[in-house]
């Protein structure tokens, strides 16, 4: 079942490609959180995306809060979770370590240019180790995803993400 984004105060988007190992961290995050919470619990819409900027804009335009989880490739220790409030980011700076050629940074830049942004956008990056062809996350990334799922689920439970 799909809902127009404006009926949900919060949309949670996992960005990635599950066929490129740790690049599927965002997808795994959404799947685990969905299994934990169900599809529309706590007025949150969960979705996966391949990073297509048009799809991201369609999902988050006008939403009070959008949360994006994506793999990053910045050279940090694998499994490191970084958080960025992209609403305050002037032009996507800090998002340039996305693993996609047209990714979250480009979506933010396009959204700002077109006036199609959520009221708030929080981006979580999970540092990957292996982006080769294949399925499955490396150990540290798997742990990081599990940790972030728990953290977000707790925040949802406390009403901090609506």
């Amino acid at each position, binding site marked *: 079942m799909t809902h127009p984004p404006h009926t949900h105060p919060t949309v949670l988007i996992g960005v990635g490609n599950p066929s490129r190992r740790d690049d599927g961290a965002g997808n795994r995050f959404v799947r685990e959180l969905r299994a934990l919470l169900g599809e529309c619990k706590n007025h949150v819409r969960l979705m996966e995306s391949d990073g297509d900027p*048009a799809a991201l*804009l*369609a999902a988050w335009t006008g939403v009070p809060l959008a949360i994006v989880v994506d793999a990053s490739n910045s050279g940090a220790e694998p499994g490191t979770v970084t958080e960025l409030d992209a609403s305050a980011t002037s032009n996507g700076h800090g998002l340039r370590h996305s693993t996609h050629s047209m990714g979250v940074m*480009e979506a933010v*830049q*396009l959204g700002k*240019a*077109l*006036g199609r942004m959520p009221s708030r956008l929080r981006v979580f990056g999970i540092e990957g180790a292996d982006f080769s062809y294949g399925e499955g996350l490396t150990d540290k990334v798997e742990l990081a995803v599990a940790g972030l799922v728990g953290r977000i689920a707790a925040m949802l439970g406390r009403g901090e993400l609506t």
Partner: protein
Amino acid sequence: MSSAERVKLMKGKSRSRRVKVDVLARVEGEGGMYLRLRNGKAEDVKLRIYEPPRFFEAFLRDRTYMEAPDITARICGICPVAYQMSSCHAAEAAFGVKVEGQLRALRRLIYCGEWIESHVLHIYILHAPDFLGYEDAIRMAVDRPEAVERALRMKKVGNDLMTLVGGREIHPINVRVGGFYKAPAKVDLLRFRPRLEETLEEAIETVRLVSGLTFPDFERDYEFVALHHPEEYPLNEGRLVSNRGLDIEISDYEKVFVEEHVEHSNALHSVIRERGPYFVGPMARFNLDFDQLTPKAKVIADEVGFLPPITNPFKGIVVRAIETVFACEEALRLIDAYEPPERPFVEVTPKRARGHGCTEAPRGALYHRYTYDEAGGILTAKIVPPTSQNLMTMEVDLKDYAEAYQGLDDEALTWQCEQAVRNYDPCISCATHFLKLDVDRG
């Protein structure tokens, strides 16, 4: 002789320039370009395709004819319908199956959806920034938000049409040999119709917009190749024709066209035997099949002064816009004439046979050939995408263009050469399908 004197001598003697782009931007897939100019001549031109080989022809073996449309659709996320159609037609040709009437119409309808989304993506997001002086569409959106918004709207209509008929926009799930798993209801198509009417108007505006762009002065005498059908602009059916007298059944494709492996590329190069490179895609269709375009497409082409023959590859952006008008118009016609078929597919009985399919992907003719065993298991497969058919023509274009415009500084020449590659809307992921990989560890 001192090292400084040697350098001066080398600089003085060498009239060599190199244009090197490690990663081409705004193309689908991963490729690079290398060009060496010496004494006014382009000595070495290479389009380096380093997207890894994907071996689809190999792992299709021992799969069944029913799996080929779903497997080959994965070759491309932008033109999956083209692969599904070519593989379906190949199986149907082998097994003596005719898909006619409303099922044939539905195939044209889903193909129209793919042409709309693919062409709009290329026109506005990949190619227009070149002509307007922007590094990419995001920077273009800052100054021209209305153009990018229009592109997103139009692309969504194309994608949604693919979902309406095919069940999903990327790798549709409703296409099968013999037709479809489920036919759409008339009411659903009629509900969608107003969006197509709006998109048709936006496509007409797109033609007016892009026909006003400034095009480099560059013409070549190409051999254009496309499907030709006496009554309709080609999508799924026709004979293969060219502007130099070619006129063959698609089952004779391999008697005329041959693929060659070149050292610098993971993609095969396709040529016409004893003739050389050729050019498939929108410009080929436009030049060979103009009379079969729909009425509004012909009217807008005439209004902006774009009538065949078009032989400047930079003007491909206008041709794509005209084809988008056609796709919208054709989709509306098909919806108006639609009545749900009695059954969503024609029964298929496999047999030991060989079958050929050739349909017009957004980027040009896409050829499939399979041999099947008595149960419809695939024994061999051959897939020739449009981009690999255009690769040699693209390299010749680069050579001629670089020689003609060598007066530009390196930065400008590099930009224009990249633009020259983007004229072809190359789909590099499609081009790297080949089977054999020779590894020389000597």
